[in-house]
């Protein structure tokens, strides 16, 4: 392992991998990527793989739209198939309030150039023929949303980054950060010390602990989200379905499996990632309610991962107030995979040229000093 690097990135999930590649592509090649376990061991390798642009906050919509533009060409750019499927996202509403919220969201999304639209329940049949439309009051659809294989996205980025000189060290845990003169100067790891020009905290739900090593308090907390996969079946849909009402989301992977999860309002913050029977039954009940035919399948596997949740459900990005060379890239609140490619570009703009874009400024850690406005669509 090298003993110094211009940029040290902590965490080899999608955020760290995308940033390492993007920096190297622009010529910032003295990059060391540190991973406590192995690439994709955390939330990225446990997520549903959805890539959605239908959000309610302007910055989330813009970041996601920017990401989709990158995802569209990523297999080709990385010369590695990321199994990207642009089959659209169907967002379900069950109450009139949710339908009204959707109407507002679509208006903002359209204003920003997103081709989302409101659907009557009958129109949902055309998109997911097996759907029981009696279960919904309305829906929205955006045909340019989609999903990809998270393992392959990270792998593609890492291969690209390594070709350009980035060094990845797995099974290397960061144990301390040394701060001198308003900067993080050194990263202490389980395998030695590294002098750093700049340090990026992309450690997902563990970012809070990494930040604390430099005396920085992040307002985020880890929250378990569970997920499962059924047996593979013949292709029935390209669409990712999510519900504003219950927080269920599911799609069919390139492999044919139905993969999905459901949020649980009773979940307490913490680092527990055990699987529960409660989740299994809650998810299946909702899945089969919407698409009864899926009741014929078997469940192969369930697992869990951690959302890194901030008070406004939006990420914490960019330089840390008081520690200009300590860059935050965390707090994604369950949406990191969707926006990582665009975030990597914005962070690279800052690292390469000191440029702070409007979105980066808006998502700085300093925003929590004032009043916060929450993203309303926190689903997979």
């Amino acid at each position, binding site marked *: 392992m090298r003993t110094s690097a211009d940029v040290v990135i902590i965490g080899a999930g999608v955020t760290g991998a995308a940033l390492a590649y993007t920096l190297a592509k622009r010529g910032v090649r003295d990059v060391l990527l540190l991973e406590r376990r192995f690439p994709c061991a955390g939330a990225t390798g446990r997520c549903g793989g959805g890539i959605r642009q239908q959000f309610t906050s302007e910055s989330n919509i813009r970041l996601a739209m920017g990401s989709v533009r990158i995802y569209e060409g990523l297999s080709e750019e990385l010369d590695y198939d990321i199994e990207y499927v642009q089959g659209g996202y169907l967002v379900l509403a069950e109450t009139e309030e949710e339908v009204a919220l959707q109407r507002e969201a679509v208006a903002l999304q359209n204003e920003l150039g997103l081709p989302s639209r409101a659907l009557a329940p009958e129109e949902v049949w055309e998109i997911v023929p097996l759907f029981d439309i009696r279960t919904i009051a309305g829906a929205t659809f955006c045909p340019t949303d989609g999903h990809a294989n998270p393992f392959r996205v990270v792998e593609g980025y890492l291969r690209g980054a390594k070709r350009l000189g980035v060094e990845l060290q797995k099974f290397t845990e960061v144990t301390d950060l040394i701060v001198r003169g308003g900067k993080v100067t050194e990263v202490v790891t389980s395998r030695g010390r590294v002098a750093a020009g700049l340090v990026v905290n992309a450690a997902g739900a563990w970012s809070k602990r990494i930040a604390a090593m430099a005396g920085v308090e992040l307002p985020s907390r880890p929250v378990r989200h569970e997920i499962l996969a059924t047996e593979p079946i013949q292709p029935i849909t390209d669409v990712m379905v999510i519900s504003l009402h219950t927080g269920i989301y599911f799609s069919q992977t390139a492999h044919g499996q139905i993969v999905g999860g459901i949020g649980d309002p009773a979940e307490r913050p913490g680092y527990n990632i055990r699987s529960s029977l409660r989740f299994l039954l809650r998810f299946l009940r909702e899945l089969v309610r919407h698409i009864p035919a899926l009741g014929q399948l078997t469940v192969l*596997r369930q697992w869990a991962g951690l959302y890194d949740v901030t008070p406004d459900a939006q990420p914490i990005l960019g330089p840390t107030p008081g520690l200009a060379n300590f860059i935050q890239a965390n707090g994604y609140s369950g949406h990191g995979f969707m926006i990582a490619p665009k975030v990597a570009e914005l962070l690279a703009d800052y690292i390469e040229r000191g440029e702070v874009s409007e979105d980066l400024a808006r998502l700085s850690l300093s925003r929590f000093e004032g009043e916060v406005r929450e993203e309303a669509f926190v689903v997979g």
Partner: protein
Amino acid sequence: MNEPIVCRCEEVTLSQIIQAIEEGYDTLEELKRHLRVGMGPCQGRTCLPLVARILAEKTGRPLSEVMEEISVRPPLAPAPIALLLGGEDED
């Protein structure tokens, strides 16, 4: 092709596994994510002991250490959804 298949569910061959280990996927969890070994209907009951042995031989690490790396994920055998929801009220 007469190549031995190690993971029958996902049709992963012996040479694919050896190549992946040589490329640096040198833990069971990484091999699983990279090649999908053990992610099919048998959930690794057939192939993971074989993959673990290949991995131990290639890396010179003890088999017991290699086996410890894999996490067990429920349900242990494919579980029919209808059966799981069977006790619940139908509407």
